[in-house]
């Protein structure tokens, strides 16, 4: 597999603060790589270094086999583009926004018009050329920003939390776009995210980041399978709880995570413990189900978000759990906000960290 970009012992410090700490990372041609980590873990800085708009303090960056000289990155910048987390647009028309990079590349007007039109079609904003970009809705603005990057057909496309702060409909559109561009144009994509679902669904590989370091890297199943201790530190990670564990007479343990919620786990554990329940392992029902599962809690639906074919629900049972079910189940069950529901999961599906 070809490596398109490589970070070797890359460090970035602002004054005394080290934000990227001796990171080694290879980005393979044609892959989608997700950087997953809490805020401030260094994801954005790595993306900026890969976009060649931020100089590393130490280490080496290679792009397409050549070491990058950060004193002059004009050539490399033509091949790598970053879409910022905070949507930034030029205060002009949608057309001028998207055509900006093409004008810089001296693309003739005819081609420019065609490419802008195509890019707008991809992000489902056909006919928006003459609209004032800054007057669009947040989701539309982010889609313009993506189109502006896509139109350049760079080797490397970097996305910083592309779907944060977007409504589910726009998230769906953007995820489709990312997937399509990767498959059809073979664009290598590196995206930062703290959305676990996105990290599981889109990328070929995930790199877990914490405090400026990459702590784990591999295929999603692999990384999620062996949940390392770092994961518990992610504030943004759903269904991670900490509490005190006590062994029970039957050979299991109960972890008291507060607010009267005690989670039963299969391992024998005493003292402080962190537990994680995969949202997909939780069964949602309108009445208490009789089963062998050891953990049953009653609660209320506090949040519903649409993730394409899936629906993500937040259930408050004293502690808030995230549950993921298919859209079909969601519709058939006729669920709504504040509805009373039960969540059920096996002691063996709780991972003790």
């Amino acid at each position, binding site marked *: 597999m070809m490596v398109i970009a490589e970070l070797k012992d890359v460090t970035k410090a602002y004054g005394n603060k080290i934000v990227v700490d001796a990171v080694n990372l290879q980005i393979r041609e044609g892959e989608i790589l997700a950087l997953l980590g809490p805020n401030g873990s260094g994801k954005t800085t790595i993306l900026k270094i890969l976009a060649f708009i931020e100089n590393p303090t130490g280490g080496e960056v290679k792009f397409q086999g050549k070491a990058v000289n950060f004193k002059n990155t004009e050539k490399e910048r033509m091949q790598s583009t970053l879409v910022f987390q905070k949507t930034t647009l*030029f205060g002009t028309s949608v057309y001028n926004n998207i055509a900006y990079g093409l004008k810089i590349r001296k693309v003739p007007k005819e081609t420019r018009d065609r490419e802008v039109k195509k890019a707008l079609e991809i992000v489902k904003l056909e006919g928006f050329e003459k609209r004032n970009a800054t007057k669009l809705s947040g989701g539309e603005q982010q889609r313009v920003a993506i189109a502006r990057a896509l139109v350049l057909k760079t080797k490397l496309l970097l996305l910083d939390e592309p779907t944060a702060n977007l409504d589910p409909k726009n998230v769906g559109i953007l995820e489709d776009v990312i997937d399509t561009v990767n498959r059809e144009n073979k664009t290598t994509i590196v995206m930062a995210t703290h959305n676990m679902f996105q990290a599981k669904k889109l990328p070929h590989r995930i790199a877990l980041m914490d405090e400026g370091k990459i702590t784990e890297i591999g295929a999603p199943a692999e990384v999620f399978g062996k949940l390392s201790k770092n994961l518990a530190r992610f504030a943004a990670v759903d269904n991670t709880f900490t509490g005190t564990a006590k062994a029970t007479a039957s050979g299991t343990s109960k972890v008291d995570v507060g607010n009267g919620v005690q989670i039963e786990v299969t391992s024998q554990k005493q003292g402080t413990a962190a537990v994680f329940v995969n949202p997909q392992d939780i069964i949602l029902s309108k009445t208490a189900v009789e089963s062998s599962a050891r953990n049953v809690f009653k609660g209320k639906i506090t949040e519903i978000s649409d993730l394409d074919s899936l629906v993500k629900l937040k259930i408050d049972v004293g502690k808030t759990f995230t549950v993921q079910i298919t859209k079909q189940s969601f519709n058939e069950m006729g669920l709504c906000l504040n509805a009373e529901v039960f969540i059920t999961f096996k002691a063996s599906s709780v991972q003790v960290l």
Partner: protein
Amino acid sequence: MADILGGIVEAFQLIFTGDPEILGIVSRSLLFSGTAVILAILWGTPLAMLIAMKEFRGKTVIKTFLNTLIGLPTVVLGLILFLIISRGGPIGFLGLLYTPAAIMIGQAILVTPILVSIGVSAIESVDPEIMSLSKTLGASESQAQVAVLKEAASGIILSDIASFNRAIGELGVVLLVGGNIVGVGNRTDVLTTAISRNVQIGEIGLAVALGILLVIILFTINIIVAVLRKANYIVELAKAPYFRLKRYRETKQ
């Protein structure tokens, strides 16, 4: 009271008959102040970009100094310039004193602090990400700076207009280095100095007429700019048929 009313009546007569004396004064005012502002833009805009975009020590001191200079009495600036360009001054040999050139340079220096000050805050108020954004889309350092400048355009235009307003309505510098010369040859009397002279010699009607014209000029220019800024899309609209025609011709070939 009768004087004032008589003055106003006379003023309108002079304005509507297109008195050549008045036309001359007005066009000199426009020419001198316009040139002065263009001069100030030439050196003030790069200076504003430098102060706003670069990080250096003493930046706050420079900004404070510029803001203070805005309030500098024009008579004091006029006096300093007079001492520099008068025959015994450091550049007295250039013979600039009491020439139109002296007025233009004097006004340009006078408006520079306003131009730079407003320009700096306009550029600084642009989203700092615009620079990085332009670069990640492929722009070079200078292209990225142009992109920032474009985002600051309305503030920059405001600084230019404020400078022009200040220049055309200014008296002290013009009086001291321009000399308010009437008669043949290089006349240096402009709206403000002519008003002052005509009041002194009892030509109230002429003074009022010039005063009215000065205010009209200020209003007109500000209105034109406001309309132009709004009407940008009308310009775009007007361009559309031309481009369509051009494309049609190109496809025919």
